[in-house]
Every structure is written in structure tokens, then in C-alpha cells.
């Protein structure tokens, strides 16, 4: 019994001591807040990153899925965490739109310091096999002749709607949006013919090859070597690009040396061939940016999102 109590004492002291002398960051497990459910696109990407970060930081990086309310619950949790580098936030582009659409009061640049950009998942406009359109051009013609008749599945107010809205704006057409959250339910609805088009990514290649779905256009600058037959919107004459970008942030006020350490680990982790391989399976490109580049990138993205939110009639604040 005494031995057990001593052990407990050591355990307690050890844990407390670790907190008091935090000079050698990191000396305990780091919590990575992913604001979406486990198993989703975002989760899978960060779960591939976590062990590689761990390798370069020398401490466990534990993914914590804090889901709910379009990702804003996790955002709040991360924003209110101690800025000590033991909580890092793993968001994607939704952080802009949820602010402008009034779903949260947190403006990303007020609450977080960007650390690095990790990956980009290009959007692909996808149609169901039951639709008559073989190309994006046919879709545009149909939509022009029958305004509001094209049913598009999307998570309303999130990236899967913004990509389609961006393309629609460029082509001068309008879709009717039907709420389907998550890529998997959208693909099921496409397969069942309950919706006509949806945003997806290269992970759906298998179903396209099987003739169950059709890729109409990819929203990147150049064609993707995996799917050389799918034209980009740019070459079709619409000057738009869209990808879902994912990066790491820390709560505002995190010490500079901690941010540097995280940034370095992030750079090394994204360079691992293992990471590139994992991303390829997710239809995603590795896209590393350091803190400075990422900050500028976010600012540009923020502006585009704001304009689109306005176009969709969802803008709640400037």
C-alpha cells in the first residue's frame, strides 16, 4: 500500500513538475484539435500527419475530434486553449465562411497564429450517371435553359457549396442547393439519382471508372495526371480555381520559439514520402507553406470567401 501511495506521489509530482518547467518544449503529449468527425476527409488527412509530426517533435501528437456546429465547436475549444503549444488547431477553409455567415464570432486572425499550410484537395465537379450531361459545357447549357432545375448537393455554407458557387458564378448560371453533409452521403445521393451534381475529389475515381459517376471538370490550374481526360475550368474559359486547404494553427499568444519548433516539424513532416503517399490516396496534393506565406494565403482566401458569401445572400457581417 505504502509503495502504491509513493508511486502515486511520484506520478503527481512528475506531472506537476512537467508543467512548471516548460522550457524544453515539447515535454508531453500534444493535442491536435480536428473540428470534424473521425473518418471524414479532414480527419483522415490530419491523422496521416500526426504520427509524422510526432516523429519530428519527439512527443505524442494525439488527434482529438471536437466536432459539431459546422466545425465551430472545435474552433472555440482551440481558441480558448492555453497558448502553450500543447494544443494545436487543424482546420480547413471553412473558418472564413462560418465567420461571415454568422455561425461563430471567432475571426481566425484574431484568435489564431497560422503555423503552416499542409495540403490542398482540388475540387472536382461531379455528376451522377443518370444525368444527361457528358461535359461541363452541356451542364451550363442545360442550366441556362432551365434555371434552378439543376439540383446540387452540398454542405450549405461550407467548402463543398463554395466550389460549386464559384464555378456557377463564373459560368453565369444558378444551381438549387440540397443539403447533404459530407462527401460520402453526397456520392450516395448522386448514385441514387436524388441530386444531379456535387463537389467531390479524386477519391471518387473508382466510381467514375465504373461508370457510376462522371467528372465534368476539375478546379485546378493544370489537368491532373491521374485523370488526364478531365478538363480544368480554366481551359474551358472560366478563370476559377478551388481547393480545400488544410493547415495548422495555434492559439494567439503562443511563444515564438514554440511556433518555430512546430513550423520546423511541420515542414519536415510534409516532406516525408510517406505523407505524399497518404495524401495521394485522399485525392490531395501536399502543399507546404511556412507561417508567413500561409498568413498571406489565408488573407487572400478570406477575401474571396467574403465576396462569395455575399453573392449567396448569406453575408451576416463585414
Amino acid at each position, binding site marked *: 500500500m505504502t509503495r502504491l501511495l509513493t508511486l502515486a506521489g511520484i506520478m503527481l509530482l512528475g*506531472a506537476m513538475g512537467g508543467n512548471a518547467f516548460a522550457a524544453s518544449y515539447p515535454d508531453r503529449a500534444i493535442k491536435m484539435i480536428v473540428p470534424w468527425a473521425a473518418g471524414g476527409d479532414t480527419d483522415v488527412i490530419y491523422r496521416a500527419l500526426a504520427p509524422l509530426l510526432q516523429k519530428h517533435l519527439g512527443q505524442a501528437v494525439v488527434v482529438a475530434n471536437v466536432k459539431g456546429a459546422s466545425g465551430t465547436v472545435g474552433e472555440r475549444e482551440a481558441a480558448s486553449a492555453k497558448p502553450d503549444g500543447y494544443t494545436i488547431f487543424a482546420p480547413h477553409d471553412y473558418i472564413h465562411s462560418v465567420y461571415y455567415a454568422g455561425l461563430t464570432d471567432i475571426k481566425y486572425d484574431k484568435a489564431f497564429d497560422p503555423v503552416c499550410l499542409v495540403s490542398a484537395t482540388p475540387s472536382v465537379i461531379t455528376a451522377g450517371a443518370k444525368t444527361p450531361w457528358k461535359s461541363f459545357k452541356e451542364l451550363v447549357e442545360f442550366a441556362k435553359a432551365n434555371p434552378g432545375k439543376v439540383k446540387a448537393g452540398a454542405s450549405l455554407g461550407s467548402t463543398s457549396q463554395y466550389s460549386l458557387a464559384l464555378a456557377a458564378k463564373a459560368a453565369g448560371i444558378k444551381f438549387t442547393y440540397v443539403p447533404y453533409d459530407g462527401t460520402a452521403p453526397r456520392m450516395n445521393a448522386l448514385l441514387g439519382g436524388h441530386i444531379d451534381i456535387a463537389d467531390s475529389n479524386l477519391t471518387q475515381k473508382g466510381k467514375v471508372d465504373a461508370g457510376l459517376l462522371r467528372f465534368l471538370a476539375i478546379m485546378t490550374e493544370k489537368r491532373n495526371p491521374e485523370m488526364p481526360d478531365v478538363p480544368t475550368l480554366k481551359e474551358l474559359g472560366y478563370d476559377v480555381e478551388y481547393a480545400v486547404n488544410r493547415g495548422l494553427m495555434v492559439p494567439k499568444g503562443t511563444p515564438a520559439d514554440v511556433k518555430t519548433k512546430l513550423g520546423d516539424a511541420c515542414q519536415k513532416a510534409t516532406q516525408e514520402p510517406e505523407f505524399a503517399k497518404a495524401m495521394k490516396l485522399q485525392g490531395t496534393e501536399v502543399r507546404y507553406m511556412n507561417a508567413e506565406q500561409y498568413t498571406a494565403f489565408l488573407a487572400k482566401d478570406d477575401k474571396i470567401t467574403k465576396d462569395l458569401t455575399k453573392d449567396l445572400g448569406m453575408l451576416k457581417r463585414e
Partner: protein
Amino acid sequence: MTLGRDGIAGLICLAISIWLLVLTRGLPPALMVPIGPAVYPRVVIGIMALLSAIMIVNDLLTSRAAAPAAPAASRAEPGARPNYLLVLATFVAFGVYVLLLPYLGFRIATFLFVAVLQVILDRPRSWQRWLLVVAVAFGTTLACHVIFEDYLSVLLPRGDWSGV
């Protein structure tokens, strides 16, 4: 005319549903979809209110007829009156545990909770039993910590005050 247990339950549910209905005021109008965020809640809360009302009416109609039979229904076993004091104490202990968890951290709070609740439920009358209480509390805490944090990588709450 007295209100039975069902009637009271119905009244509580009715009150809650009316209060929730009031709360649905001020929700934004429909955006991009045909029905707004207030429509569905109003429908289901309305159903809840209606059913509560039916329950109250049912109770009022039957309780008069069945009033004399009421004691039989309670079917109290001899000497087995529910120990509500203990129930209340358990609730309070649990409530305090949950409230203190984010401040004391999982390890300290759980040790205290398991020890205290054991004492509340069954007061030890010998020092061996006290030792058992402490051992169980300590064992539970240690086992949870080792299994979850160390083995399964499930992070448990850390205390804001204690730092563990």
C-alpha cells in the same frame, strides 16, 4: 380532483414545451432551403405539448375513478421505502465531481469521487474497510489513467488549478 403522478409529469412536460416554443422566436428565416430553422422545432415541440396535455387530461379522467385503488398500485414491499436521501446524495456527489473535473483534473477528482461515493453508499465501520475504500479509489484512478492515457491514447481532462 387530485393530480396523479402522470398528471404532474404531464404538467412539467407541458411547461417545458411552452417555454421552448417561446425560445424558438427570433430564429432567422429560411435561407436557401424551403423551410427555416424554426419550423421543424416548432412542429416537434408542438407535438410534445399536445401529448403532455393529453396525458394531463387522461390522468384527470382516470385518477378520480382509480383513487381508492391507489395504495395497491404503489406495491411497497414491507420496509422497503426508497432511500431518496441516498439518491440525492449520489446526485450531489456526481454533480460536484463533474463541476470540479476541469479544475482538479481527472486523476485527483476521480480519486476523491470514488472514495467519497463509496463512503456515502456504505459507511465503512472498520479500518480494513476504510483501507478498501482508499484502495478501490486509487486502483480505479490508476487503472483508468494507465489504460486510457498511456495505452489507448484517449486524453482525459487536465485540471486548470492542479495542472494534472
